[in-house]
């Protein structure tokens, strides 16, 4: 009976992400060439690796302890004849800190320039997780917020207004339960739409209102642009220099900034 109804309404079927997800081909580590690079970032213990495994079909590593993913993992999948390379990054609370795993995540998002950055957040700890999400939105235009662990949130009676969140952040928001594969077809679809430019992001930038600082930031940005024309995000680097980020300062003074950028490619 259901099949007959579907045949009568073919349009609905074609646009449904669940139907299209049948086309998903998990490529595991078999990545020779790819069309888009997708970075998975998020706080520790939010399910990045679970999402990574369900997308790529790999079973590399899942475990519930801090610092499990200290280096980045790569895998791939194919969807609607487009090949995606997925990079699973170590969990980080911030892009501005000093630990090695957070540095790996930061360097990749900043210099690796993924086509889409998926920010995986714990729906039960949104307040804590949005710190990183906002920092990522400072340095990239193309991002998707993945509200993971929605089952836990529901269990605790947490209701999230996804549409409002998406509007305020200026990026698409996808609720998922990665453990049960819920919401993943929609996530895959959204990643595809952002990568191809079908969805345009207009990310919220908190430092739009830095006021009197903006002159100094602008001068510094222009200077960086003239010295390192190839680097992305001069403005972000300028802000870090003003912040006194010793990593960036030493990389700049020793002339290693360019090699840092090349190392993640």
């Amino acid at each position, binding site marked *: 009976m259901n099949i007959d109804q579907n045949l009568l309404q073919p349009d609905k079927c074609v646009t449904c992400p669940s139907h299209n997800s049948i086309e998903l081909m998990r490529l595991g580590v078999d990545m020779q060439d790819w069309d888009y690079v997708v970075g998975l970032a998020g706080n520790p213990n939010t399910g990045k690796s679970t999402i990574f495994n369900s997308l790529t079909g790999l079973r590399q590593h899942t475990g519930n302890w801090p610092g499990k993913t200290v280096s980045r993992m790569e895998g791939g999948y194919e969807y609607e004849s487009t090949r995606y390379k997925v990079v699973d990054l170590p969990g980080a*609370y*911030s892009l*501005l*800190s*000093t630990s090695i795993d957070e540095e790996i995540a930061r360097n990749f998002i900043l210099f690796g320039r993924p086509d889409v950055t998926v920010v995986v957040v714990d729906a*039960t*700890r949104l*307040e*804590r997780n949005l*710190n990183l999400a906002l920092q990522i939105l400072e340095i990239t235009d193309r991002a998707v917020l993945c509200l993971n662990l929605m089952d836990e949130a529901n269990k605790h009676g947490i209701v999230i207004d996804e549409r409002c969140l998406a509007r305020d952040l200026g990026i698409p928001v996808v609720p998922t339960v990665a453990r049960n594969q819920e919401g993943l077809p929609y996530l895959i679809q959204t990643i595809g739409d952002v990568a191809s430019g079908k969805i345009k992001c207009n990310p919220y930038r908190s430092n739009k209102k830095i006021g009197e600082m903006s002159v100094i930031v602008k001068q510094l940005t222009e200077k960086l642009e003239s010295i390192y024309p190839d680097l992305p995000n001069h403005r972000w680097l300028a802000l870090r220099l003003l*912040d*006194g*980020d*010793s990593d960036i300062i030493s990389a700049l003074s020793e002339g290693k900034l360019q090699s840092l950028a090349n190392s993640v490619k």
Partner: protein
Amino acid sequence: MEIGKSCRVIGINERCNGLERRRLLDLGILPGTLIKAEMQSPSGDPIAYRIRDTIIGLRKEQACLIEVIM
């Protein structure tokens, strides 16, 4: 701070600057945040605190930089 006790953050000491300060802020330690001491390691240092629904271990030197009211 005794295990099981809670306090509220007033601010981070001026001695704590740059990345160290940033780190504490990133962990969610902002004015008004509630902090509860949950567990103690055998030697008494570090102590695990509950900060914004996540358990975070802080060493005494770091914890000393956070100004709180009980």
